[in-house]
């Protein structure tokens, strides 16, 4: 390959990556890259700091970890059946993007930002009004269970299809946490997919965030290396589900 051809190949590759950054990671991606934001890669670990294995996650249990900021809660769920693949979603701004699928051996492991896109309901150490409703329980928000429900205003999201809105007042899916499933069965958070609400969240819950996470600089610190992951029932003193 001469110098000119080499430069052509490099330029073509750079263009492809610029148009679709997800090609670098090959995981979940936005159709045009605009609704995907990569953050520092963080390994999901348990309370003792031990890496969490996808196959060891209890089925249909909501786990919580903070990502990409020290104060932004996300939920991790091992669903009872494989998720849909290549789900086309639409943000409230009308932008289309694609949620690729769950991860793990059977594509059952999913993660979403646990901040409701309607009025930003989220779990706190005191209580939680948002979480996954297992298939053996009922919810008032939707005629089927096995969905994510925000019990504040009864919005329901499809846990197995990129948290697409199924019912209620929410007008866009929950943001998805882009996960990598490594060969050793460990899980890593690498980015956020969807039109995020972090700015609104920090502004709206300033006094509460201060109470639980300290000064704004601490609360907005980016998570790096690892993210402690615990069951929702351990994260919040009280879990409310309607």
């Amino acid at each position, binding site marked *: 390959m001469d110098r000119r051809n080499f430069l052509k190949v490099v330029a073509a590759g750079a263009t492809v990556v610029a148009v679709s950054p997800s090609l670098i990671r090959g995981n979940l991606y936005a159709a045009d890259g605009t609704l995907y934001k990569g953050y520092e890669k963080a390994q999901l670990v348990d309370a003792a700091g031990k890496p969490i294995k996808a196959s060891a996650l209890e089925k249909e249990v909501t786990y919580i970890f903070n990502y990409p900021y020290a104060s932004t809660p996300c939920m991790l769920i091992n669903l009872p059946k494989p998720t849909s693949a290549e789900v086309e979603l639409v943000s409230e701004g009308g932008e289309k993007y694609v949620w690729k699928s769950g991860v793990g051996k059977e594509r059952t492991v999913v993660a979403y930002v646990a901040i409701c896109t309607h*009025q930003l309901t989220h779990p706190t150490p005191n*209580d939680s*009004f948002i979480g996954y409703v297992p298939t053996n329980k009922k919810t008032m928000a939707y005629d089927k269970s096995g969905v994510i429900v925000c*019990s*504040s*205003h009864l919005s329901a999201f499809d846990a197995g299809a990129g948290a697409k809105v199924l019912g209620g*007042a929410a007008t866009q899916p929950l943001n998805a946490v882009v996960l990598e499933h490594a060969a050793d069965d460990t899980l890593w958070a690498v980015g956020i997919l969807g039109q995020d609400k972090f700015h609104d969240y920090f*502004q*709206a819950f*300033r*006094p*509460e965030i201060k*109470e639980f996470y300290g000064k704004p600089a601490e609360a907005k610190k980016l998570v790096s290396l690892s993210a402690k992951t615990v069951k929702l029932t351990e994260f919040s003193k*009280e879990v*409310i589900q*309607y």
Partner: protein
Amino acid sequence: MKKTLAALALGTLLAGSLGATETKDPRLELMKEMRTMMDAMEQIQRGGLYSSTDEMKLGVKKLQGTLKSLEGEEVKVILPKDQVYAYKFAQKTAHMLRLYSDDLIASIDAGRMDDALEDYTQLLRQCTSCHIRIRNW
């Protein structure tokens, strides 16, 4: 004698009916509290728009005086029957109202008026959020 007895009986009846009206109906009490909350919110807003921190603080005091009925277990009695199950949501709203109103005072005292006005916005948001939920908007 008959007249005296009749007057006594009438008096007893009247006293009884007056006593009955004095028994507090929790729903009427809630409506009264809600009107006070609305006045309090208007007062905070008026204080904010007229740059009167005293007015804002008085509004916060008035607002916080109404929260006890929503924070405790008695909230179950005052909610509409089809929404009693959601009393935890009402309690959470009351908790957030207290949090934002406390922060509003702290922000005023620290001279952070932007934060104080943001707290007012969030107070109003909590009000509408609860009304959407409880009154089935």
